[in-house]
């Protein structure tokens, strides 16, 4: 397998080993009636594991930063500077280039309303959009589709073998991941549809899977016709995935292959979103941000992959980038102080990234509380100044055109205290 011709199955293999899965849904079925709004695109990147905000956007201009961070502190000349206070991690090359054009901004002290410092509880809250754990059983992106349904028909689609909470709910979300395709001459799909007819769970899920597979075949064919994508549409039947048992047994070559796979995943997603009838709203998950020990190398790898996904997305969307907003968030940040093992433990606020051609120029989003001892949350974490639901609400209202009252009552109930962040687009 060369980097030039990477077939879809090998893409899946690498994607899986990177802990990357893509979920996207929402189609532009009623595009004509909705005009410009039907072109607007939203991508949510969920960085799982608790991404360290002080590594994503090191506040090298903050007087307390270096002392708190100790052995993992970065110097001004190591980072890509954004303003007098903040830089970006050196791995975030694409993000920095976009920021230079006013198409990327940081929210340096953003958090969900959850304060338990539990991955699983905090991810639940991030994905349900509720004010606390067990506050809702459906995902806020799914409720967005539900809220839009009376205005324009949107259908759900997720890429990845498992269904993430953020898109679970009343709207049947489809899902898809690169694979070998469905043999349309076989009778089996039809027979199974018949067998699942009275099954409320398997029936709709299977039907949606088949539809999506058909659509995916078209999208992949279109992508392969674009030379810049370098994604081959047809899978090679005798191409066997390497049975890599330990993804972390990576050497530099594998890391490069990892970035390349991440970039292709991003560009594939971008390609999907530019298809007629393609998804308008997408979610990608990136794993591996739980850096309790030996953080420097680990986070550099993860941020390299994230930057590659964003780079791919940017190029895959092409001219549609101007209609796009991308939000990258994590369930919580990490301790401001380095811990005893060259890493950081579970914390509170982190950095969110907001990117896209639809974005207005501007500085940081939300306030920076600073890292003075009395400014830290519980004397350990970056203090939250922005509830991420406010960011989500602002983007859904201003960019996607979701009715504000519906946002407050259906998509993010109990979020009155989290004022929508306006003026981003």
């Amino acid at each position, binding site marked *: 397998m060369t980097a030039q011709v990477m077939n879809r199955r090998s893409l*899946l*293999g690498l994607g*899986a*080993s990177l802990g990357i899965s893509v979920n996207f849904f929402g189609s532009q079925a009623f595009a004509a009636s909705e005009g410009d709004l039907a072109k607007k695109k939203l991508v949510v990147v969920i960085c*799982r*594991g608790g991404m360290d905000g002080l590594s994503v956007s090191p506040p090298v201009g903050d007087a307390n930063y270096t002392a708190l961070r*100790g*052995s993992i502190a970065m110097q001004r000349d190591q980072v890509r500077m954004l303003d007098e206070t903040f830089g970006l991690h050196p791995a975030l090359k694409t993000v920095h280039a976009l920021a230079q054009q006013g198409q990327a901004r940081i929210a340096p002290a953003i958090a969900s309303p959850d304060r*338990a*410092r*539990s991955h*699983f*509880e905090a991810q639940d809250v991030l994905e349900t959009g509720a004010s606390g754990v067990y506050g809702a059983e459906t995902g806020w992106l799914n409720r967005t589709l539900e809220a839009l349904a009376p205005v324009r028909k949107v259908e759900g689609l*997720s890429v*990845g*073998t*498992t*269904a993430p909470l953020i898109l*679970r709910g009343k709207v049947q979300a489809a899902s*898809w*991941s690169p*694979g*070998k395709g*469905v*043999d349309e001459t076989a*009778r*089996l799909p039809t*027979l*199974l549809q*018949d*067998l699942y007819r009275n*099954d409320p769970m*398997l029936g709709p*899920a*299977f039907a949606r*899977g088949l539809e*999506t*597979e058909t659509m995916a075949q078209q999208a992949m064919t279109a992508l392969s016709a674009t030379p810049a994508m370098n994604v081959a549409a047809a899978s090679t039947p005798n191409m*066997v*995935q390497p*049975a*890599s*048992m*330990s*993804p*972390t*047994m990576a050497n530099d070559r594998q890391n490069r292959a990892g970035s390349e796979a991440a970039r292709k995943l991003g560009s594939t997603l971008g390609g999907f979103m530019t298809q007629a009838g393609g998804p308008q709203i997408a979610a990608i998950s990136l*794993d591996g941000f*739980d850096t*309790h020990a030996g953080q420097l190398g680990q986070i550099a790898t993860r941020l390299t992959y994230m930057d590659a996904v964003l780079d791919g997305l940017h190029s895959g969307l092409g001219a549609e980038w101007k209609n796009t907003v991308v939000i990258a968030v994590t369930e919580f940040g990490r301790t401001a102080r*380095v*811990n*005893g*093992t*060259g*890493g950081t*433990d*579970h914390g509170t606020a982190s950095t969110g990234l907001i990117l896209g051609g639809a974005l207005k120029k501007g500085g940081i989003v939300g306030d920076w509380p600073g890292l003075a001892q009395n400014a830290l949350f*519980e004397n*350990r974490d970056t203090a939250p100044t922005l509830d991420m639901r406010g960011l989500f609400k602002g983007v859904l209202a201003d960019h996607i055109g979701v009715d504000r009252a519906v946002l407050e009552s259906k998509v993010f109930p109990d979020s009155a205290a989290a004022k929508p962040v306006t003026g981003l687009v």
Partner: protein
Amino acid sequence: MSKIACQRKGEPDLSLPSKDMMAAIAVTRFGLGARPGEIDAAKSDPQGFLTAQIRREGADIPQDGGESASVRFEQMRDYQQQRRMERQQKDGEDKTAANAPKDKVMAFKDAQRDLREKVGADFLARAQLGASTPASFRERWALFWANHFTVSATKQITSVLIGPFEREAIRPYVFNSFENLLTASSTHPAMLTYLDQAQSIGPNSRAAVYVGRRRNGKAGLNENLAREILELHTVGVDAGYTQNDVTEFARALTGFSVGRDNEDRAGQFMFRDNAHEPGARTILARRYGQGDIKQGLAVLKDLSADPRTARHVCGKIARHFVSDTPPKSLTERLEKRWMDTGGDLAAVAKALVESPEAWDPTPTKFKTPYEYTLSTWRLIGAQPSAIERLAPILTGLGQKPFSPPSPKGWAEDAQTWASPDGLIKRMQWAQGFAAAVADRTDPNDLAKQALGERLTPPVAKAVSRAETRREAFALLVMSPEFQRR
């Protein structure tokens, strides 16, 4: 269904279905799916068929190479050292061209391949045990605990220790006391490396003072294991503990470590007295006096006896075996047996088998990819033969071998696995599998062997009307009844 019920509204139905139905449930819901003839064998006494599989000495041990965690740990250390040397040579090559000793580079490559193959062999041996064992309730019980105490190959050093972890710390204790299981897990090198405990040092310990002088203070606490023991292994996230409880517990656990190459206990659990944080600790409102290893062990003991642990873990058992939303009466029954017996897991397993709620004929659990593929091999009386084939299958279905994405382990609910893409991937696999094995089978008989009394007329009809044996086989294993348990 042949079921005589006298049920009041709103209460779970506590009558038991017919013996034939119970035999099918015993083998498919409690076990890993029927091997040929297995449902028939369970018919005379379905509950006895299961309780006979409970045994004090623990679960079966997979037939792998049998290397201990300490041997593996040292092999990994050697590999890492060789890798470092190779890197240094590479740096040297830039300056001094082609005089790097090639044999050293080869040694690094060989070691890497060897280790990867060992992890693969561990996984294959476990899958073969699951596919072939006549005591598959016992195996499922072990798999439940392995997932409860998740360690994952997403961390390099841990990957080679997972096989040994299950063999040494999980399987021997799954019908023992919960305290012994928790202690074995919390002191095994796999867990200590996976959750970063091995390097955690008390900030005021002798080791910290020493390191502080030599390396500018880069030594201290890591709270990862302490937090996950509370949140995932014992009392659960809603137990009401605070950040201070987590930090205090992390301090109590300092010293729980793994021996280094030059130490007597290389690659084994080792308590580092000089890394232990001095002083008394308060955790969940209990005070633990100044102490060495006994301090951390005392906390584990108290956590094991805590009723919140019984509630959290029994809820998980009920969700794993019976339903994503189990009846309250079932979890209470399990909790009571747990508390009455001081967390005797054999007694809890027996209570599960004896609970009428667990025998509801309507199957609601959706098989995970591992359970699903194993049950298909069991159906034809076969087992997977090569990791090179097994690993891509499970990865494609969303469950990469030994690689759960987080310490929470694999999800077990239908919402996660019955996704549109999940079903398409299963169908594609079922077609391929059918093409390889179905021509030698009698599909109608296979349907009866697979589901017994659970076989419904629509599935029987679809199988009997299929055009080819392959189509019949794929329909059977893709049927709602076969994918659920």
